[in-house]
């Protein structure tokens, strides 16, 4: 019984983890159809901000929930203005440019902070469930994933900014004729996506510590989740996160963590062979 609960919690944690990692990327992809190849480095940046500010005396939760999203969000807006904006409609070029940015950031951070791992201890201790101990931080991740999805949904559904965003997502030319400055919408989207990624990086920092090339360890999962989910931000991320989280956790239980990612990719390839636009390209097409 206890073991069942633990297994379920582990699967939920894996799903939540994918959702948190991929949400920022999914926001950008859903709106702009562009994959930010520097996603891993945006995570890394969020992690560094968290650790640095915490070391400077800021409470950890403030660092994770405020400083990391804010800084990375602003950085995202800067990147959008300086780079992405010039590459609208040139999707391949924007992939290449963000990949360049990724290398640039890894190199830059290495030059500034050195190629070492820095970290803080994971807060929240652990909670006993029967004979098992569950890290409290894992439960927090599940809650954060749920809140994050709910917040994005509410933003899109109930605010006027969300309405503009949805309109632009459906038909950018039409939105433009209705007086929407799509260029600003894209800037805000990229900023918001980056902020969410910054939050994910902040949450990551106490778990894994931070190092310049840490992003590499997380981008595969994030990318697979987003392309498997397809263009809908919430439905796509949730459905792909659930499917892939379950698969990877199942494989991890069976064979250890090494094959988890490979199983994810294989599952995604098979799925894309059937649904080339991702899950929400065919199912839940009209959802957010």
């Amino acid at each position, binding site marked *: 019984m206890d073991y069942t609960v633990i297994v379920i919690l582990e699967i939920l944690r894996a799903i939540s983890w994918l959702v948190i990692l991929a949400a920022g990327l999914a926001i950008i992809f859903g709106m702009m159809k562009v994959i930010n190849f520097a996603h891993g480095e945006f995570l890394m940046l969020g992690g560094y901000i968290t650790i640095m500010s915490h070391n400077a005396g800021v409470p950890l939760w403030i660092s994770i929930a405020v400083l990391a999203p804010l800084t990375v969000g602003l950085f995202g807006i800067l990147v959008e203005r300086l*780079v992405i904006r010039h590459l609208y409609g040139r999707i391949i070029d924007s992939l*290449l440019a963000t990949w*360049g940015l990724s290398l*640039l950031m890894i*190199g830059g951070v*290495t030059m500034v902070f050195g190629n070492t791992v820095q970290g803080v201890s994971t807060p929240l201790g652990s909670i006993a469930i029967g004979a098992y101990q569950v890290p409290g931080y894992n439960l927090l991740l599940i809650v954060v994933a749920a809140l994050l999805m709910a917040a994005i949904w509410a933003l899109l559904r109930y605010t006027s900014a969300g309405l503009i965003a949805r309109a632009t997502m459906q038909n950018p030319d039409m939105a433009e004729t209705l007086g929407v400055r799509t260029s600003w919408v894209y800037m805000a989207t990229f900023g918001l996506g980056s902020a969410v990624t910054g939050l994910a990086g902040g949450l990551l920092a106490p778990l894994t510590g931070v190092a310049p090339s840490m992003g590499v360890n997380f981008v*595969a999962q994030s990318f697979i989740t987003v*392309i498997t989910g397809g263009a809908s931000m919430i439905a796509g991320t949730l459905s792909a996160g659930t499917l892939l989280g379950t698969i990877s956790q199942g494989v991890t239980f069976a064979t250890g963590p090494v094959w988890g990612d*490979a199983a994810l990719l294989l599952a995604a390839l098979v799925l*894309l062979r059937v649904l080339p636009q991702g899950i929400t390209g065919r199912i839940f097409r009209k959802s957010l």
Partner: protein
Amino acid sequence: METSLHRDAGFWVMIAIGLALLVAGPLVWDLFQIMQITQYVVLSVYVLSLSYIWGFGGILSFGQAAFFGLGAYTFSVASINMGETTFPFLLAFGLPALFGAALGYFMFYGKLSDVYMGVVTMVVTLIFWKLINHTAGPEYAIGDARLGGFNGIPSVPVLNVPGKPEAWLDPGQMFQVFMAILVILYIVLRTLIASDFGRVSLGIRENETRAALLGYDVRRHKVIVFAIGAGIAGMAGGMWATYQTFVDPNVFSLEMSAKALIWTMAGGVGTLAGPIIAVVVLQYLSLKLGEMHVLNNNFILGGIMMVLVLLVPKGGLPTLRDALVALKARTPAALQR
């Protein structure tokens, strides 16, 4: 536009340069220079794998390092087990080509969009890198070859004369063999591009729908082109392993994939000579910059990549060519209009 190969001066110039270097190189260079230039030759073979499929097949792979690494490990494992290098070298082409065909089947028969293809090819590389990094334990061995995880496989055999496992090539000979491979590859690719098969590739690059409307199976054709590119990258990986007599997971790194993209972009998509020149120039520059220990290598690579995309989207050689044409034709062109 339509030029037959034997009348293209550039084609003969490239071959002449290659053959001249092949003959004269070992006579004029010292050992260090030979080693350095051999490295450029190997990386040139590698970059051609991408320049061909991207420039002449319209297929952008963000994961050539997956095939490069697969070729490097295939060659290492096979040659350690077999005690000779000829068959392993062929395997370094064959196995990645097969893997490329399988991956290509999923991508092209699934009709994935460019973004999806980019992501999938990149993720494949990442996963190889992760998997191979986790093979440190003694249980991860194929025959006599321990994979060694992040430490890699030491003492990969040097290339030997076919049929004579004891007759190892010295660095000068290895340079000559590799240079010959590069020249032959260049001739083969140029011939392939000029053939009917190559024209269909160009057609698919220009307009997939029309190619299908003419009765060409676009998906199958792309799988073949992709697999050829994968095989070439794999062969380059095999050359890399035997050149270094050592292989580690870095052959699967994202930097390795990015380098192929950067060299191809810098040289110009749609040429073969340009990317080779870019390999030599950019590798030499990053070597010199690296020696100064001011800038990190990734920082330089990333910076070059962004500058290329934003400022020189057509690539070095075509931009130079256009500039020359514009300079030459400036006045007459103005008068014509």
